[in-house]
């Protein structure tokens, strides 16, 4: 198969690559929150809020990845 002969849109590939980083990031955020709640269960409410905040910041990068597909780049 000749790679140069492939046609189609590159945006899905960009999104696929863009999800890798945020996926790892969200995993770390949630994992650390679980760890903290296991250590101090009484802080769960506050930690959950912080966790969603951290997830929101991290996953914004993946959403920029999706948005790329909607930008009309000159071909």
């Amino acid at each position, binding site marked *: 198969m000749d790679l140069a002969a492939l046609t189609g849109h590159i945006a899905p590939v960009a999104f696929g690559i863009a999800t890798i980083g945020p996926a790892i990031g969200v995993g770390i955020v949630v994992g650390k929150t679980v760890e903290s709640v296991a250590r101090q269960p009484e802080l769960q*409410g506050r930690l959950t*809020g912080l966790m*969603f*905040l951290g997830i*929101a910041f991290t*996953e*914004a990068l993946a*959403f*920029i990845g*999706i*948005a790329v597909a909607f930008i009309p780049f000159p071909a």
Partner: protein
Amino acid sequence: MGTPFEINRIMLVRFIAVAALLLLFWLGTRRMRTIPGRGQSLVELAIGFVRDSIVYNNLGEKDGKRFLPLITTIFFLVIALNITGIIPFLNIAGSSVIGLPLVLAVIAYVAFVYAGIKKSPLGFVKNSLVPSGVPIGVLLVVTPMEFISTFIVRPVTLALRLLMNMVGGHMLLVLCFSATHFFLFSAGGWFGLFSIGTFAFGFAFTLFEIMVAALQAYVFALLTTIYIQLALVEEH
């Protein structure tokens, strides 16, 4: 027709969602009593959640009172327009085209810039552009980065996060249910069995979308509050 004020399906869904929101609040607060009835206590629970766990928790009571109406409006507007994505016959989120998230992001942007400038113009600029304890040479790199992250990336990500969550969720649902339709009616033979799986996934993602709708409203309101809080911090 053809003008920017044309009524399309998404505009119609937005009108319905806002009308439903107004109706719910009107019904809930029609006869206010000291001992709340069922409707009133539900409304009080929702508003109390926004007030206590989003606004007062981060801004404190004094500053929180000023921004409470804004944050409450943002929260309930976003949740009403998000939840239409999974309501049968509406089936599209009112926030799944760029207009509404953009307007809300601009409002949040104006709110936190206003909060900072009202408090002290110099302090706001210094706090957001010049982090304390950074050597003077490093500031050449840090200040442009802080400018971009505070004044450009914040509103853009605020709008994109809401929009892309709704667009992505809608696409997942469309994929699952159109696959179900295809396997059940068009594929023929034993392919019909696949439709059970795709329908189950569609159902699961519908439940997931309910959570995402509430979560995005929470995140949008929380981030607006945090940005206002960061604009209001004392100089140190």
